[in-house]
């Protein structure tokens, strides 16, 4: 199942890696002072990583499972469901592979920025960097879980619209999405914000867990 899920995720991962490289090529400029980097880290990168997560969570097994009862299901779905594996494992493995891919993308991209831009090293200490990553990871997982949930409750066409709407929301149209990605993720860097980081991380973790549980339950109840 891990391999099957990886096969479903790998092209999305490549696509998102290319997107991140393109954005990095635009942003990385060694003449830029640390203050500008602060804005870039706060304003742009959480949004990019959230987009990565949304795209990596979509499609795959989830979209195949999202057909309504009595309708034709994705052809390979029948084959998958005939294997001796529980539906919860099918969903959890697929979501785990997508989430790991999102995190790999996050850490790899951040490493590139830290290595390529000395100003970032001046900006953050090791501990604040670790905390920044913890915050952004928790936000990323919320975005991931929302997208994964959409792909279990909507059919294939609507989940594409849902993912696009989610990306649009993250890009700045929807205040709540901006709150999660722009305020909470860089909480450590933006010290003027009152919300304790731990509460934010706990809230994100709870939301993520709740949405994963709903996804699994939805798939378990699905009829084909």
């Amino acid at each position, binding site marked *: 199942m891990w*391999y*099957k899920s990886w*096969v*479903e995720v790998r092209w999305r991962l490549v696509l998102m890696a290319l997107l991140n490289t393109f954005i990095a090529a635009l942003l990385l400029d060694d003449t830029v002072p640390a203050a500008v980097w602060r804005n870039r880290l706060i304003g742009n990168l959480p949004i990019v990583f959230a987009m990565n997560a949304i795209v990596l969570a979509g499609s795959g097994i989830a979209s195949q499972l999202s057909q309504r*009862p*009595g309708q034709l299901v994705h*052809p*390979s779905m*029948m*084959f*998958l*469901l*005939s*294997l*001796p*594996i*529980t*539906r919860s494992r099918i969903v959890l493995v697929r979501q785990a592979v997508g989430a790991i891919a999102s995190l790999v993308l996050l850490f790899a991209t951040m490493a590139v920025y830290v290595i390529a831009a000395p100003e970032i090293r001046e900006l953050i200490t090791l501990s604040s960097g670790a905390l920044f990553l913890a915050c952004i990871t928790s936000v990323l997982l919320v975005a991931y879980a929302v997208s994964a949930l959409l792909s279990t409750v909507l059919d294939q066409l609507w989940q594409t619209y849902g993912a696009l709407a989610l990306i649009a929301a993250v890009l700045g149209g929807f205040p709540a999405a901006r709150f999660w990605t722009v305020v909470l993720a860089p909480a450590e860097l933006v010290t003027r914000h009152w919300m304790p980081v731990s509460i934010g991380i706990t809230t994100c973790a709870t939301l993520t867990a709740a949405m994963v549980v709903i996804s699994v339950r939805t798939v*378990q109840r699905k*009829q*084909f």
Partner: protein
Amino acid sequence: MTVPPTELLDGDRRGALIALKDLHKRHGDTVALRGLTLTVPEGAIFALLGPNGCGKTTTIKLLLGMARADSGRGTVFGLRIDDERDSVAIRLRTGFVSETKELFQQMDVQTTIRLVRSFYPRWDSALEHRLLKEFALTSNKKTSALSKGMRAKLALLVACCRGADLLVLDEPTDGLDPAAAEQLLETLVSMVAETGLTVLLSSHQLHEVERVADGVAIMRDGAVVLRGELDELRARVRRVEVRCPVEQTAFERASFAEIALTIPDGTTEIASAMSNNGGSLLVRGEADVIAAQYAALGADVSVHAVPLRELFLTLTGVRA
């Protein structure tokens, strides 16, 4: 908790590999199954016959845990089909070939085999190599690039090699050319002969079913309308043709059409199309006894064997 099959089922259903009782299933406004009751004995090739939309695929989905019945009960290997844990255990011992013969599209032949093999501790590698050779499957070819016939062969390979006790095949030869269909059926029959596994086969191909199946169930509108062993059906199902003599009066003809037949024990009237001038009856059992009752009234009576095709067409409503 797994309910033993003896609690679920009664009488002659005990010991059946598949036992379904009074299954009902709706898809929205459409009734897919209405009180389906069916047993499949161990070690048999058993065919589910019926027109499109009669509930064959829904039955298979219920067996494999892909859908749940609205009501009714069922077991496979004595395990409940509506219990998730039991369903996984059922699928561990069951090979399945879907109607579309689709596999994982992004994978090549070898990867597909490797992936399926990882789920089955009883995987038969020797059989895998034999079938790969027999079916001339190219290991590195993507399954999406295979023809439907080759996909069917690969699907059959991964279904057979898992060391299953039960094979469920949904329209296995659908869309295959005659040579591919023949090869697939030959493989199936030799597998059953070698391993003694049970096969549940859904098909429209009556001539193929007559060649390979031990038993059949004919479905119509979500229920089984006839079930039996093929040899028994060949031997005991007869069409009784009755023609009323021309010289009889209209009154005599009317009463002739309304006569109350005495049906012997163990005999059933499967279908009847009688009018004042005569008609025909499909009878399972003592057809001669029925024929004699009409003959006693002065009618011209003849008794004929009934091919599976005619039985199918009559029971599914295509032919009156």
